[in-house]
């Protein structure tokens, strides 16, 4: 079993850290993992993306043309990556920042207005964790209970309030997926 | 029998290859005497330039390295940072230090590297046969400024002591000359002072020494000493430009 997930958005949306969090969590859950960022551009406020591979076996290539899943945080990223997702793959969309529907009919499309939800819970910086929580609840790539166990370890050295904020955002996403997806 | 003069222990028993009348030999001896008198020979590590003093490792009787052109201060940095209790010196000419090695010397000074630079300024490229140096005087004829150095074409001669004295990292900057015995003694004092300031860890130290090149200047040895006195010293005034005193 091997799955590859692309996270894409613009710099500052926490795209790279969202991918890193998932990579950590999957590693803690005993999976083989790799995290490959696009680099350079993210420092200049352009688009940012990273590719996470999670596998039971040893990972040969940490790079792919066709990820199984694309987590899309903004419109330009949908334009860029919609055609790349593997046939019958999954498209997770931040509908707060994407103003069109996907063209492809074969994809399973999971939409949630992340920025709006983040505003509602007064946690604007938690948008990426909301999306991640929803995605993991829906796909079970890593079990939610386990992810919650790993929070302290992954955020080691961070202030307790920051960890709590991230956890709250993550669980908001989990709840959203439970109810609406 | 009383010994009144002998070869310093810090010099090897090799004949200098320098041209008749060249003052490199005097400067080598002064550096060696200072190392002896401060008992630094066994802790000293020297770096030779590319230029006439490229073979200085055959003369100094301490650990020596030969550098790429202009890079001696960078090599000295690598050594001194790893062996801070050793005495590290570079011996560089004007092409090496002020032209191709301008970046290395300025940044070694800005970082306050605790090294001593012996900078031999004879206003010409010696080893390659008399080409223009960054310190060649205006009007001076060389093989690459055959009509005399013109400010419109070749710009102005580099005053390295003045330049490096501006740097906060410099602890001792002095310009001396070796055109007569009195100035030779002053040069020795300056080298002693620079080494002591290095030992005290106060920062970067350099002694710029005005030197002769009779061969490429086309002058006899005595004429060359006079030429230095009457042409170089007015443009390159002697004296200490920066001194952080040892407490």
């Amino acid at each position, binding site marked *: 079993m091997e799955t590859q997930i692309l996270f894409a958005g613009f710099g500052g949306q926490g795209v790279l850290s969202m991918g890193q969090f998932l990579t950590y969590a999957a590693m803690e859950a005993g999976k083989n993992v790799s*995290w490959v960022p696009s680099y350079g551009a993210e420092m200049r406020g352009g688009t940012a993306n990273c590719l996470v591979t999670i596998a039971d076996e040893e990972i040969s*290539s940490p*790079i792919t043309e066709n990820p199984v899943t694309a987590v899309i945080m903004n419109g330009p990223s949908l334009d860029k990556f919609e055609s790349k997702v593997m046939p019958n793959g999954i498209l997770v969309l931040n509908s707060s920042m994407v103003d069109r529907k996907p063209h492809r009919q074969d994809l399973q499309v999971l939409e949630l207005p992340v920025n709006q939800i983040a505003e509602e819970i007064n946690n604007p910086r938690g948008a990426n964790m909301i999306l991640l929580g929803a995605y993991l609840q829906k796909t079970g790539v890593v079990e939610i209970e386990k992810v919650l166990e790993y929070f302290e370890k992954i955020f080691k050295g961070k202030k307790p309030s920051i960890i709590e904020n991230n956890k709250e955002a993550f669980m908001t996403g989990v709840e959203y997926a439970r109810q609406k997806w | 029998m009383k010994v009144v003069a002998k070869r310093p222990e810090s010099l090897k028993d090799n004949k200098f290859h320098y041209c008749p009348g060249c003052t490199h030999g005097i400067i080598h001896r002064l550096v060696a005497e200072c190392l002896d008198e401060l008992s630094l020979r*066994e802790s000293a590590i020297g770096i030779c330039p590319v230029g006439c003093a490229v073979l200085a490792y055959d003369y100094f009787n301490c*650990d*020596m*390295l030969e550098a790429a052109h202009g890079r001696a201060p*960078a*090599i000295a940095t690598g050594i001194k940072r790893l062996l801070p209790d050793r005495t590290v010196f570079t011996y560089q000419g004007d092409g090496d230090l002020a032209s191709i090695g301008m*970046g290395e010397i300025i940044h070694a000074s800005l970082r306050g590297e605790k090294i001593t630079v012996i900078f031999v300024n004879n206003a010409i490229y010696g080893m390659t046969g008399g080409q223009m140096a960054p310190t060649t005087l205006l009007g001076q004829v060389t093989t690459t400024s055959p009509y005399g150095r013109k400010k419109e074409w070749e710009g102005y001669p580099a005053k390295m002591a003045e330049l490096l004295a501006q740097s906060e990292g410099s602890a001792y900057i002095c310009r001396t000359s070796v055109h007569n015995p009195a100035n030779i003694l002053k040069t020795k004092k300056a080298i002693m002072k620079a080494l002591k300031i290095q030992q005290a860890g106060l920062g970067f130290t350099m002694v710029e020494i005005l030197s002769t090149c009779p061969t490429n200047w086309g002058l006899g040895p005595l004429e060359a000493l006079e030429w230095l006195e009457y042409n170089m010293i007015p443009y390159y005034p002697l004296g200490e430009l920066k001194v952080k005193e040892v407490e």
Partner: protein
Amino acid sequence: MEKILMKGNEALAEGAIIAGCKAFFGYPITPSSEIAEYMARKFPKIDGVFVQAESELAAINMVYGGAATGHRVMTASSGPGISLKQEGISFIAEAELPCLIVNVSRGGPGLGGIQPAQSDYFQATRGGGHGDYRLIVLAPSGVQEMMDFAIEGFDLADRYRTPVMIMAEGTLGQMMEPIIVREPVIQFYDKPWATNGCQGREPNIVNTLHLSADYLEERNHHLQKKYDAIASREKRAESYLTEDADLVVVAFGLMARIAKKAVMEARKSGIKVGLIRPITLWPFPDAEISKAAQTTKRFLSVEISMGQMIEDIRLAVAGRVPVDFFGRIGITPNPEEVFRAIMQVAEREGI
């Protein structure tokens, strides 16, 4: 053992520290800068030396001086910076100063781009600077190897008194993978040649000037003998499914892992294809290639360049079978593209 998730550049830096590296001299350049940043954070706490040099030239010459003291020292850069260092690398090779030089490589020529590439292969394997010399060049393929090869690189450097280069595509520096931090027994070597002060011995001289033509030739023969010894002992490669292969893909670095996935897919399509991954780029594992040339019908060199390693493959094959090429620059070919390249060759040649 516990796994730690690390960036390739940081794993390499940590590996160097494990190997007993005492100093880093460098100049920032994407995509290698995290190595310098890691050392800048770590070295002040463990009595190491970090200097951000004013230039690549100064950095490599600080390495020259640092290595001459007998300590383990290193530098890291990327293509344009490695070009600037070549003068110093030539001096270091002739002065026989052990050190580690890392090229986290990007595409050229000129300023090129910052995306990963392997187009510094010629520069790395042919010496790079002036004169007859070689570097041992190691090509890691994952984050674990970034660490392991840094440790091994320092050992090879000391054992043979020679500069060692690690060449890794930019992606390897930037990506994260879990690694196991091993604590190997580090062998330290006597360095009686070091210029560290001549107390109780005759002075040492570190020098590369040999004005006597006879002695210059003697020095070159000495170096050549050393390179011959390295070539006879240190060639390394990995072979995968080559025994029955009609087509052998050759790729190094992270590219080799990408190619491996393509090879696995092609096998599923019934194509008898295998993979050779050179681990040492110099000395090049020509025996491994030559052996495969006895049984395979074709080779396919896959590189992130316009075709450089292919020349070494052709030398090893010595005209016995054809060698094809697939490469891109600025973009790392993905497994799907390599798969298509394999299938194209297979179809065309009836493999």
